[in-house]
């Protein structure tokens, strides 16, 4: 090294560390490798400000970043090497894309001179992730790092949130340059629609529609939570008296015990909610994207309703459902404007509604709810004390009442639907799940991320035996990090349950590829150095949950449940949400070959 070396020189790797710190990042989830080694070499110099969580699989690192983001509202950061390290991030990046989660994924890349030569562990990760990233960058010059990182975080966090990938060549990480931190964001092709001026005409038109509606509904989705608009939603609902339904990702946006709260719509929503949608005359959708799990057959969705769609992404408006009025903007801002407009009119005596119309509507929906009382199916007690899978969720719900709040991370499948249906959702960011992608294996690493984001809260995981087996190695990460606030409830039915259910209901009970064996999960937990508990009858559930909650460490509970319980109600694929199967007794399952018994050790 030259004696005249500029003390301001930094390697690209150091600049990258500093850039992350400047963005307010204090934890990253990753796994090193050759092409990202320079970055890892620099990391310890910043250990007091930037903590690295070593995961057991890059997919785990990616989902951990997602869990962190969904729990905290902040951008989740994951790091991997080139080649297979990068491709292992594809699933979590796709998951973040579908659920609009703010994520920055950093991958090492081979040296610039080797690009395109099929070098060792070279992959065109940018090419691969183009359809599933909001944007991506290939950094070949260390001087670009300050600008690229600033842009990446800006894009990940603003507007419609989503994943951004930064691919950094090894030579860029190694180069020594003087960083220029004077970054001015220049993104002429990007508009952050949250900052849009409120369209006063649209607000007035929406207020007109809502004020004159005889059977209005508010549908609240992911956007309400991401915008931090729960209070504004409550204010509008209470001012207008309009009942509220919440999508899977909207659970927690509106307190479930509120008189105006109806529940979840869609494929596994409640009958009364779906019927209300089919009867309503005005539907105000805030921050949900009319996903097909919610709408069922889109052409039959809300046939009598004028639909008002509020979304931060203009390309969502009118994409799947015909919309009477579209409002592009931030959920919180729009909700405030709607409330202000309605308040102003009420003060002037306009739109006075004392004719009892809304009361009658609410009464009508509540009558439907009585008729198809949710959880009714789950009250049927089969013979014996075989543990029912939904009882696990009911018991967890009861425990939460006395224990205070916790966050719940769910995986994908039947257990996910039972948790969504049967747990009481009161506050935003308490329900963390994979929605649009439905990625099995999401829960364990996502819980890791949530636990790190919220060290003072208990994180309950509800996961199936299938999903658990995909990513359970992250228990080792939890142990290495010394985490104690994660409690894992495995709903173990020895099947890929949701697929089995469809095979039973719609495919003549042909259980192809669904019987699933697995290890003794309590013994596996013990092998990881955490507490494992096995529960195989109903009487033990409550005490197991209490024991787990009291235990000062990670706990895995293997709930061995009734194997062929089904999630009801269900809207069969391609049907209208008005046609729900309420239980199996109304639809005799076709006979088919008996299922293989997978057995449990």
């Amino acid at each position, binding site marked *: 090294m030259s004696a005249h070396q500029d003390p301001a020189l930094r390697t690209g790797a150091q600049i990258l560390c500093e850039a992350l710190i400047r963005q307010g990042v204090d934890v990253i989830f990753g796994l090193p490798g050759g092409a990202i080694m320079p970055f890892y070499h620099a990391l310890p110099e910043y250990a007091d400000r930037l903590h690295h969580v070593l995961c057991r699989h890059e997919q785990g690192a990616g989902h951990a970043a997602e869990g962190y983001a969904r729990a905290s509202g902040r951008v989740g950061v994951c790091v991997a090497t080139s080649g297979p390290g990068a491709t292992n991030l594809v699933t979590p990046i796709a998951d973040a894309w579908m659920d609009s989660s703010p994520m920055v994924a950093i991958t090492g890349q081979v040296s610039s001179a080797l690009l395109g030569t099929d070098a060792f562990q070279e992959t065109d990760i940018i090419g691969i992730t183009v359809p599933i990233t909001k*944007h991506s960058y290939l950094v070949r010059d260390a001087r670009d790092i300050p600008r690229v990182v600033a842009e990446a975080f800006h894009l990940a966090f603003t507007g419609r949130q989503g994943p951004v990938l930064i691919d950094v060549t090894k030579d860029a990480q190694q180069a020594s340059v003087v960083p220029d931190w004077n970054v001015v964001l220049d993104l*002429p*092709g990007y508009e952050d629609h949250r900052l849009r001026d409120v369209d006063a005409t649209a607000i007035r038109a929406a207020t007109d529609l809502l004020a004159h509606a005889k059977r209005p509904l508010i549908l609240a989705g992911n956007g309400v939570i991401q915008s931090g608009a729960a209070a504004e939603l409550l204010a509008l609902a209470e001012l207008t008296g309009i009942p509220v339904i919440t999508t899977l990702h909207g659970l927690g946006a509106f307190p479930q015990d509120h008189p105006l709260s109806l529940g979840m719509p869609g494929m596994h929503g409640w009958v009364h909610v779906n019927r209300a949608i089919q009867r309503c005359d005005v539907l105000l959708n805030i921050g949900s994207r009319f996903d097909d799990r919610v709408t069922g057959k889109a052409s039959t969705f809300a046939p009598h309703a004028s639909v008002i769609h509020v979304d931060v992404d203009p390309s969502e408006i009118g994409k799947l459902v015909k919309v009477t009025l579209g409002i592009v903007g931030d959920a919180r801002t729009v909700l405030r404007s709607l409330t202000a407009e309605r308040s102003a009119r009420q003060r002037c005596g306009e739109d006075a509604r004392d004719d009892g119309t809304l009361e009658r509507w609410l009464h009508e929906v509540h009558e439907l709810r009585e008729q198809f009382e949710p959880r009714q199916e789950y009250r049927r007690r089969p013979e014996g004390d075989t543990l029912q899978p939904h009882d696990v969720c009911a018991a967890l719900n009861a425990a939460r009442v006395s224990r205070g709040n916790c966050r719940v991370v769910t995986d994908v499948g039947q257990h996910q639907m039972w948790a969504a249906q049967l747990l009481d959702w009161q506050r935003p960011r308490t329900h963390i799940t994979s929605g649009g992608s439905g990625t099995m294996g999401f829960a364990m690493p996502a819980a890791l991320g949530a636990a790190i984001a919220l060290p003072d809260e208990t994180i309950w995981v509800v996961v199936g035996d299938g999903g658990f087996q995909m990513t359970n190695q992250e228990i080792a990460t939890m142990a290495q990090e010394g985490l104690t606030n994660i409690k894992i409830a495995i709903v173990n039915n020895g099947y890929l349950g949701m697929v089995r259910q469809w095979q039973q209901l719609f495919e003549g009970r042909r259980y192809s590829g669904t019987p699933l064996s697995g290890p003794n999960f309590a013994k596996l937990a013990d092998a990881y150095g955490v507490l494992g508990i096995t529960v195989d009858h109903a009487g033990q559930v409550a005490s197991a949950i209490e024991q787990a909650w009291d235990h000062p460490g990670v706990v895995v509970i293997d709930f061995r449940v009734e194997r062929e319980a089904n999630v009801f109600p269900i809207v069969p694929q391609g049907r209208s949400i008005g046609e729900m199967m309420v239980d199996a007794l109304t639809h005799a399952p076709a006979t088919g070959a008996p299922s293989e018994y997978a057995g449990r050790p």
Partner: protein
Amino acid sequence: MTTFQPPSRRHTLVVRLNDRPGALYRAIGLIRRRDYNVSSLVVGSTDQSGTSRMVLVIEAVDVHQVVQQLSRLIDVLSVAEVAHEDTLLDHFADAMRRFDTLPIATQLPELVQ
């Protein structure tokens, strides 16, 4: 029974993009995703340095969605649908056809013995 397929129609789009590696790839990728065919594509630089212009003709069922999703790409500055100018594109097609008669040498790598 075959599912009813709505008819594809030809649409001409003019897209202004940042003149950067990857910008074009991302824009075309969007169209590939919907399995729409690109009948013709011209990309070139504009007077504004750093900006390029792409004119493409696609056969699409729902062009509105394509326009919306192109617009939200970070490197896309503007998207407009224009009336299909037969004459302009015919001239372009004629110009392209001239390449058919140009002698094109295929360079074989010399084997080092």
